[in-house]
Structure formats: structure tokens, C-alpha cells
């Protein structure tokens, strides 16, 4: 299997603070990789560094065999990297359809073609009944789904999901897990930050753990839940009992 993303020594400093510290990460095509860690560990900053929002201070990022370290966000999107945001970032006054069309225009330039893709993507996430709703009026769960549809409409190879399940109800979480699997099965590689452990463990082929900007562990979900260091810094003692 080909390596889709190669992050080497990715470091991001904000003045005196090293938010991300020499992180190495490879992502293979077709994988679902989970990224976990305590609040402030640098997970979102790592996302921002590889997508070009805040270019890394040091280190390099290779995507699909091209060096993208210095590229800007929109170029990365053209190259096939799409993301969602920890705090939803909708185009509030536009309809669901228009929101997703903005994504679809990444690959299409005709209005009708983009509209067709957008309709498909909205159906894919199961929101066809809200096609013409103004997005600011939707629930947070719907806005997150829509954000995924919007990212998918750009036809990405790699999709970065930043806590898409935060704030969702248990039923919505279940739907979301199904949706993520469906996305992977459609051939998109996924890197996801998530705090809902049950969902993450179910979905991930591999989990990486960040703490204080450093990558402290990497492995299958089973390995990670047994890792002393991860339990100490993130998972908490509930997992300790499980081992004993």
C-alpha cells in the first residue's frame, strides 16, 4: 500500500510555546488513523500545520509524493486534502446545497455539475430533506454532517476530521460512526481527532497519541489502551483497572 502522507519532524512554535514537537507520522492509503491526546496536546495545531493553515516552523510534510510543506491551504485542497473544523465553520447564510457546492467547485467549474455533486454528497450524509435550509438554522449535528459533505465534495484523497462527534447525541454518534466507515469504504483515507473513545476505538485501524506536542505512542487501539504512558496522560485510571 502506498504512503499518502509523510510528516517528518513537524514542529510548530508560537513564540515561546512549542505546540507541536517533532512529530513523525505516516498514513497509508485507505487507513483510518485516530489522533488522541489531552486538551492542548497540539492535535488541532498539527492539523493546521499539515493543511497549511499555520505552516510548520520546522519539518516537512509530503502528500501523495509531493512536498507540501510550504503550500497554502487552498493548494492542499486542490491536491486532495480536505478537513473539517473543531468548531463548525459553516457558510451560515447560505443553503445546505450552496455550502456543499462551494466544495464541489474544487473539481468542477460548471454550476450544474457542481450542483449535481453537491446533491449526491448531501444524500450521502443523509440530509436530502434539508437541501434548501439556511445552514445557520440547522442543529449542530446536521452542521457537522454537512461539513463532512462539503469536505467530501472537494473529492479528497485524505480527509481530516477534527472532533466531528463532539456535542452529538448518542444516536447521532452512532450515525456518524456509520458515516465515517462509509466514507472510508468509498476510498478516502481518514485522519481523525476524537475524544469519544468508544467511537474512535471502533473506527481506527491505528491510533497515535500526542501529549505536550510530542507523539508518545502509536499502535492498534488494543495496544494503545494498554500503554502505561497513554493511560497516565490521557485515558485515566478507568483503563488501568481494565488491564489488571
Amino acid at each position, binding site marked *: 500500500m502506498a504512503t499518502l502522507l509523510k510528516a517528518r519532524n513537524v514542529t510548530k512554535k508560537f513564540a515561546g510555546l512549542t505546540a507541536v514537537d517533532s512529530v513523525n507520522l505516516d498514513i497509508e492509503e485507505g487507513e483510518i488513523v485516530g489522533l488522541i491526546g489531552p486538551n492542548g496536546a497540539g492535535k488541532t495545531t498539527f492539523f493546521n500545520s499539515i493543511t497549511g493553515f499555520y505552516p510548520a516552523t520546522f519539518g516537512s510534510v509530503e502528500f501523495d509524493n509531493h512536498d507540501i510543506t510550504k503550500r497554502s491551504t487552498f493548494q492542499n485542497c486542490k491536491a486532495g486534502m480536505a478537513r473539517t*473544523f473543531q468548531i463548525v465553520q459553516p457558510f451560515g*447564510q447560505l443553503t445546505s446545497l*450552496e455550502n456543499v457546492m462551494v466544495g464541489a467547485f474544487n473539481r468542477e467549474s460548471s454550476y450544474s455539475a457542481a450542483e449535481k455533486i453537491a446533491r449526491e454528497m448531501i444524500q450521502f450524509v443523509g440530509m436530502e430533506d434539508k437541501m434548501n435550509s439556511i445552514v445557520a438554522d440547522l442543529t449542530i449535528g446536521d452542521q457537522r454532517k454537512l461539513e463532512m459533505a462539503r469536505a467530501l465534495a*472537494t473529492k479528497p484523497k485524505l480527509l481530516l476530521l477534527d472532533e466531528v462527534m463532539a456535542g452529538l447525541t448518542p444516536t447521532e454518534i452512532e450515525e456518524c460512526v456509520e458515516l465515517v466507515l462509509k466514507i472510508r469504504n468509498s476510498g478516502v483515507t481518514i485522519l481523525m481527532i476524537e475524544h469519544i473513545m468508544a467511537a474512535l476505538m471502533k473506527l481506527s485501524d491505528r491510533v497515535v497519541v500526542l501529549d505536550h506536542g510530542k507523539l508518545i505512542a502509536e499502535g492498534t487501539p488494543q495496544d494503545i489502551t494498554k500503554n502505561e504512558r497513554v493511560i497516565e496522560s490521557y485515558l485515566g485510571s478507568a483503563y488501568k483497572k481494565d488491564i489488571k
Partner: protein
Amino acid sequence: MISDFLKRATNSTNNGRLTVQQIVIICVLSLAVLLSPLYVSNYRLNLIIAILTSAYFAQCWNLMSGYTGQFSFGHAAFYGLGAYTSSILFVDLGINPWIGLVLGMIVAGLVAAGIGYLSFHYNLKGDYFALATMAFCEILRVLFKNTKALHASSGVSIPYSKSIALMQFGSKQGFLYAAFVMLAAITFALYKIRRTKMGLYFVAIRENEDAARALGINAFKYKMIALIASAMLSAIGGSFYAQYYLYIDPTIAFSNTVSVSAITPCIIGGAGTVFGPIIGAMILEPISEITNAALSNYIGMNMVVYGLILVIVIMVMPKGVIGLTKELVNKYDKKKAEE
């Protein structure tokens, strides 16, 4: 009945198509303007021309600020450059104003490209960008006021003629029709562009620039396009103004009043909507005309009253007439549904 009519008249999600109600309103208003020389005195035609030109200039502003969300407080810069380019070239060098008009567009476009590059490249946003545009406009005013070759503070007087070849439309009626065509063209273009990739990109940048960039939009490029296009269109408005009033000076052409006159119709009518600026101009111009006439004995009083009305209107309807109508209709519908 009325609520239903208003709902359809303010509908903007009808797949981008106009509703029957909207088409009716447009036709009635257009006819009212086109036939106005038949029932309005020559003097009152001034008011209609003022509404048309003010709506046109507001549409220019609407393109970059209403659609694309980049607030400019210095649109007089482009208006003034258009007015000055065609006037000076005609008066000093005898170049036909029609050619001057095109050259004015180019000059305004180039200056806009400079302002845009400096602002957007260094990521000036929101209020900071607005202040920067205001400053650039002020620079131009001072520059024109102090440069002899540009007639300094004495301004430029354009000789009167009756020839369309010299971009003077013979009579008030001529100017009326010319202004109508300009407004109709820019409104049609704004309406059409909303349903294209570029139009949707403009609006996406306004709504959320970070999200737009993450979805593959080169925000810098599209903001530049919006600014340059808006500047070039504003220059046409400037040239038209100069040919109509036959005199410009730096204080008229590059004043804050002109910059603000591009903004207020948009805000009052509804920024980012296709018809908002026209509605705004239809409300504001008569108010300014009435306060001018009623308070002509008290110098400056008309501006005080005008300002007061503006403040009240903005407090009552921050989303403009179109936004307020939509809200009211929604509330009415809900109330009805509850009953």
C-alpha cells in the same frame, strides 16, 4: 395575501430564479422610470437620476463589500479617479470622454490592484481593511488637491455640449436613460454572477474565509477580482457624474461623503442582496432631498437630520429593508401556524 406577496418578493432561495412577484415589481419600477419624463417635471427628473446613479454606485460597492464581505470606506477613490481621468483628458488633451471613461476604468483598476495587493497580501481584514481604504482615498484627495498638473484645488470644469459623442446625453432625459441602462446592466450582472462559481466563491469568502480556503478557494485571488471589478465599475459612475454636473474638484470627487454614499443604500436596502441597493437608494435620496429643501435656512441641519434618520433606520433594521421584511413575514407565518 400581503404576507404571501412579500414572502415571494423577498425570496432569494428560489434556486436563484426570480419569482413572479419579483418580476412584476421590476417591470413596474422600470416602466415608472422609463416613462417618468412624461409625468414628472424636468426639475424632478434630477431626483430620479440621483436615485439611479446612487443605486448604481451602491451596486459597485455591493459587489466587493456586500457579496465578498470586504468593507471599503474609500470607494470615492475609484469614483474620483474615473471622474478625473475622463475630465482631465478631455479638457487638457481633447481626448474623447468615452475613451477617457475606458482609461479611467483602467486607472481605477490599477490603483485598486495596488491597494488590494498591499491589503490582502498582508491579510488586512474587516475594520482594518476598511480603514486602509479610507486612508488611500485620503491620500488621493491630498495628492489631487496639491498637484498643479491635476488642476489642484480649483478643480476641472467641463464645457457643456449636447453631443452623445462627447458623453453628454443632450437633455435630462438622455442622462436618465443612460443612468437607467447602467443600473440595469450592473444589477443584471450581479444577479447572474450569484449563480456562478465566482459568485458563490465571493459569498463563501464573506461568510467564512477560513472555511473557504479549506475548500480550495484562493481567497486572495477572488478578493482581488472583486475589488478590481468594483473599482472599474465605480470609475464609470465617476465619469458619468463629471459629465452630468460638468464640474469636479478634489473635495467633491474624493470626499468621505461620496464613499459613504456608496455604502448607505446597501446597508439600508440589504447588503449582499441583488435589489437591496436599489431599495436603499429609493428611500435615501428622497429623504435627503426633503431634508435639504425643508431645512435650507439652517446650514448643516439637513445633514444632522439625515444622519439621525440613518441611525434610527440602522437600529430598527440592521439587516436592511429586505432582511426586515423577511423577518416580519417569518414571524407572521409562525404566529399563523400557532393559531
